[in-house]
């Protein structure tokens, strides 16, 4: 009895009971698909966040000060522009900082008008963040100091308001006020759900005038050395609390934290998923054992006949064991195909990078083989041990 004889016999008898074989495999299919989908999604999300962080150049030495005790801020911000300026002077470990004001406004050029996002930054923004000017110039120190009405526009704004001609030096109206376009930002796409092409950047001071506020929405801070971040945090807490704020009027986000929060979420998810997958594979295993036992029972006479014509224990064992292995493996492969397909579908629908976890695929396939192996041993032993005389007499 060769390997191909065993395989052919297994496929034959499984094909003879297609519905039953299919249902038996289902447990394995679901378990394998689940493992692949969820592990791949987790890894894809992590890659996505990493890419986004790297994409805006907000590296590991970066940190964000947000107003309020937690996200999203409930009470109005108490962070002021002076606070951010003080950070550079008070905390020497800080490389630099960029204060941020965010709002939205109608922008108009000629007879084109639409609502876009207004960002107030200082002139050093493009030096620190990986978001550059494509043509023209970025804001200058004087623009910021003198509350000048200059602006740099994103690619979408350019496309909507200046179809086909150079916007540099042109005038636009933002909330009715005249601004001069000094530059156009490079195309950047979406980062963390934020469209970096659909915005207009103005001096931080001007933005505050425009939005009628003296507060900030956030301050980006960079450390000279990444390991100084905790120290910098302490110092900033100390000096901001000393000024006009309490400790819970602001909070920090480091990339490290964001990744670790994400890690916690995906970790919990992964643990949960592994549990579900393990239970599903176990159920699949029990299903296979059960059906194999039924199959051995039903085919008692077949076993008797095979023994009468010369099958050894080993031949009978391998026949039923082979069936169980094929069940497990076919379940694994179906799970693999459906898992990969579903994962890819979810990823394209949600805009995550399409990524299939190689180790999850190998693990899932190994598990399905293991299930087939484990589930096959006992029924196959029962089959091999059948007494040929009783087996031949068996009526069904």
């Amino acid at each position: 009895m060769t390997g191909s004889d065993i395989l052919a016999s297994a496929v034959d008898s499984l094909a003879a009971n297609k519905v039953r074989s299919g249902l038996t495999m289902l447990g394995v299919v679901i378990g394998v698909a689940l493992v692949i989908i969820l592990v791949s999604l987790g890894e894809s999300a992590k890659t996505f966040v990493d890419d986004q962080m790297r994409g805006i150049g907000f590296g590991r030495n970066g940190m964000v000060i947000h107003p309020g005790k937690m996200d999203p801020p409930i009470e109005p911000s108490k962070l002021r522009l002076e606070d951010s300026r003080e950070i550079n002077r008070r905390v020497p470990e800080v490389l630099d900082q960029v204060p941020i004001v965010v709002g939205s406004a109608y922008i108009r050029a000629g007879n084109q008008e639409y609502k876009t996002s207004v960002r107030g930054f200082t002139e050093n923004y493009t030096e620190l963040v990986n978001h550059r000017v494509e043509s023209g110039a970025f804001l200058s120190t004087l623009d910021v100091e003198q509350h000048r009405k200059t602006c740099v526009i994103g690619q979408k704004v350019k496309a909507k308001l200046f179809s086909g001609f150079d916007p540099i030096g042109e005038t636009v109206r933002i909330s009715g006020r005249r601004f001069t376009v000094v530059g156009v930002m490079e195309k950047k796409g979406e980062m963390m759900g934020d469209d970096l092409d659909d915005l207009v950047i103005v001096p931080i001071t001007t933005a505050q005038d425009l939005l009628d506020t003296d507060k900030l929405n956030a301050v980006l801070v960079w450390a000279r050395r990444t390991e100084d971040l905790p120290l910098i945090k302490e110092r900033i807490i100390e000096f901001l609390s000393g000024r006009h704020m309490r400790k819970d009027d602001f909070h920090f986000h480091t990339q490290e934290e964001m990744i670790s929060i994400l890690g916690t979420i995906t970790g919990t998810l992964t643990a949960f998923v592994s549990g579900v997958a393990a239970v599903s594979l176990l159920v699949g295993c029990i299903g296979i054992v059960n059906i194999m036992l039924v199959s051995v029972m039903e085919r008692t006479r077949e076993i008797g006949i095979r023994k009468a014509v010369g099958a050894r224990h080993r031949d009978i064992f391998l026949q039923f064991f082979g069936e169980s292995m094929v069940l497990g493996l076919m379940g694994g492969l179906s799970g693999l195909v459906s898992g990969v397909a579903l994962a890819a579908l979810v990823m394209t629908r949600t805009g995550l990078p399409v990524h299939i976890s190689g180790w999850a695929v190998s693990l899932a396939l190994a598990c399905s083989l293991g299930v087939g192996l484990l589930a096959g041993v006992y029924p196959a032993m029962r089959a091999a041990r059948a007494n040929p005389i009783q087996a031949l007499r068996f009526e069904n």
Partner: protein
Amino acid sequence: MTQLPVLELRQLTRHYDTPAGPVMAVHEMDLRVWRGDFVALLGPSGCGKSSLLNLLGCLDRPSSGELLIDGVAVSSLDDDGLARLRNRKIGFVFQHYHLLPRMSAVRNVELPMMYAGVPPAERRQRALEGLERVRMSHRLDHTPSMLSGGESQRVAIARALAMDPSLVLADEPTGNLDTRTGEEIMQLFEKMHREGTTLVMVTHSPEMAERASRILRLRDGRIESET
């Protein structure tokens, strides 16, 4: 020339322990079957025919005594050895044909050769020849459910002969067939006998037994008489 018997029984005994005490199914039986013999084991039900056939077919082991097939003592063999012996030396023909239901006629005939490790191409060739011999070449790809009783029994005979065994054991081979079909099968047995196959057939029908060259009458686990 001294010839080795195909089958030799020395005080062969098989008893079963039942709550009512031991039952002697085969009792201290002595017998020699020679190459080319066509032996009929005749007797009423309960005379120990089936038990004897199971012993001769190496599906069962004796309680005591010795059974030699082609001079090999069966008691010296382990389970795998018995399986090998059944495979190479013995062909079974059953009353209920006992073909594998999902397999075509030709694959049923290939089955013993598969367990013997005959390569697939040779297997197929020999199975085709075997089916030709029993005039079943027109039903190669039919599964047993598509075959009549007589046809099934022919396929079963081809399977029994597939490994060119020393001994063919038939258990009421016509028991499930009408008279005419049964007659056809008996003619097939006579043909095999003429061609030199050693046959041992169990039957309860004296007419069928008449076709054999030796008739052994069994009663209570013993050979009562031989004609």
